[in-house]
């Protein structure tokens, strides 16, 4: 055997070993996980996303929300994920069985969103926050997502879903700001993020 064969073999074997460890075995161990059905109530945990929420999830992915927001409540001794009230319990691999792409995140420029639906159930709050974060969270560095809203001329009665904007933020007389389909779906997704259910052993 010549040099190249030896290097190739070594390089292949070291690579294959870690591939088994970090790709193959985790997949073997976890890909069989399924959502759990409660025999008494018939409810499924984690509940599958609604079509609306799933569309909202694609907006979440597209706009890169996950670059600043994680979706995991960590265990461990040296962090305050639970003490900060980001979840009632540590996140479990089973919480993510419906998720692709995973949006675990790698940065907390903003707070964790694993349970944002439980912490902040108000549609109105979410719309105002997405339209202009300063309205609900003064001093936030989150970008405004005004491009997910429409400025519309009021025809007849004002729309029930129009944002209640005050002062400088309010649109011109006779106009209203309404969430686009994408904004509505995104809020449906955010409100679905509630992992406060418990799994049965």
């Amino acid at each position, binding site marked *: 055997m010549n*040099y*190249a064969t030896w*290097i*190739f073999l*070594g*390089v*292949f074997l*070291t*690579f294959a070993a*870690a591939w088994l*460890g*970090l*790709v193959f075995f*985790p*997949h073997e161990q*976890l*890909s069989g*996980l399924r959502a759990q059905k409660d025999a008494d109530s018939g409810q499924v945990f984690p509940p599958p996303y609604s079509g609306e929420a799933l569309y909202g999830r694609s907006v979440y992915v*597209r*706009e*890169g*929300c*996950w*670059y*600043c927001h*994680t979706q*995991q409540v*960590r265990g*461990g*001794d*040296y*962090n*305050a994920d639970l*003490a*900060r*009230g980001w979840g009632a319990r540590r*996140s*479990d*691999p089973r919480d*993510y069985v419906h*998720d*692709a*792409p*995973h*949006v*675990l*995140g*790698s*940065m*907390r*420029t903003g707070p964790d969103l694993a349970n944002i639906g439980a912490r902040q159930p108000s549609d109105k709050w979410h719309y105002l926050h997405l339209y202009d974060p300063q309205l609900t969270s003064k*001093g*936030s*560095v*989150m*970008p*405004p*997502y*005004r*491009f997910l809203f429409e400025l519309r001329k009021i025809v007849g009665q004002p729309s029930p879903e129009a944002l209640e904007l005050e002062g400088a933020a309010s649109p011109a007389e006779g106009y209203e700001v309404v969430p686009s389909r994408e904004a509505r779906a995104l809020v449906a997704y955010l409100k679905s993020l509630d992992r406060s259910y418990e799994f049965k052993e």
Partner: protein
Amino acid sequence: MNQLEQDQGGWTARRAEIDRSCATPCLVFYASSIFWLLAGTFFALLASVKLHHPEFLADWSWLTFGRVRPAHLNTVIYGWASMAGIATLLWLMCRLCRVPLMYPAMLVVAAGLWNLGLTVGTVGILMGYSTGIEWLEFPMPAAFLLFSGFAIVTLWSVATFAQRQAEHVYVSQWYLFAAVFWFPWLYVTVQLLLMLFPVKGIPQACINWWFAHNVLGLWFSPIGLAAIYYLLPKVIGRPIYSYYLSILGFWTLALFYNWAGAHHLVSGPVPAWIVTASIVGSVMMIIPVVTVALNHHMTLHGNFRLLKYSPTLRFIVFGAMSYTIVSLEGSMMSFRFLNEPFHFTHRTIGHAHLGMYSFFTMTMFGSMYYIVPRLTGREWHSARLIRIHFWGVALGFALMYLCLSIGGVIQGLELNQAGESLEKLIAQFGYLDGISKFVEGFKAQNGAVPFLEIVHGTLLWLKLRTVSGVLLLAGHAAFAVLMVMNVHAWGRRHIGPTLFHDEDAADYDRALRQARADLTPANSGD
């Protein structure tokens, strides 16, 4: 004596032939890489400004933070770093194997495919077609184009290696040979498992981080180390300190680096054994890192004076030292007690730039200062521009690293000071009084620090980071101008290197002669 002179005559002609064969493809790769470096720096600056002024260009959906940030990452990783890396890889491979590049036109095709893939991918991200997987945001068609381009590079590298005329296989070749295998394996595996037949949930996160970390350790690190191993002895004219250390460093990197990826999921929703395996791999990386650092240090030992004169050497040594620091920092950051408080903060961004910028990018700059004049036959036109380049990027990087580290540590301690976590952290630092006292200062007074207060605390550091970005951009612009001048033949014919200061040529020659004084022709090598 005559024998030696004849051999050297033959090799000089051969060397010129090799450089001629590499010239077009390598220059195309290098020129493209600089274009993507400028584009990536532009995206980085936009993202950086948006982090402290969220209203800046906020109404254009395609320039929103969540799209500009991945555009930055992907253009610098696949555009700048990979293209500069491929050109360096090809030239080193041909020089060390002593064979000219065959059918160089095919590599120009590879560069074309690669550039097309980058354009499609970057525009795709900005239009909202990101895959949503960090380090792999390019949509499928772009990934396919990148892979096609890379397949050519791999085939050519392996064919060149198979035809090698040199008897000895130098350590740089080991690294390069491994890199051209590792990268396509990684890339194909993740494309299959995450894009074509996507697995769901947590296994996906494991694969994601296995890839994202290995791209650094099994693609960029080997190329960077190969370049340092080649250029360090080449510039000072002394052989590498120890052949055995270099082999030990290579095989321990191959063995341990592979395992490190899942330290990004510490205490997350993954089985603990996966994270523990990764922490072990990360800590074991101390062996290859210390081995390589020792080998490089001992090679340069006694000749640090040369750093004053030679641009190649100064950039390369900057890179080599950063490799040591970033790797040891990485081993430390994998520990649970440091990872949990600081992983989700700007500290991690600082760490990533210490690797990709301070190690790899600086090493590539150094390599280009050496290689490009051999491809064009022209030396660099302006010592002043080289100085602007060096000080712009060196100071810019230092400022960025300091800001992100200080801001990130404060952010991490404030995010995690509620409950018992700081008590436990302080217990880990029991014997380091200063650190314990510093951490103690962050202990909860009245419950958790409100989130928006933490955000407010990072603003100063984020603004200073934008300043550092401007310095980096100035350095990159100076380098781009140098490159344009060189390719347009605005420089003197290649005789000796352009030094940091023109008046230092005599000193430099003296220092070089001194560095080589004890060498006999037998071990002076080429």
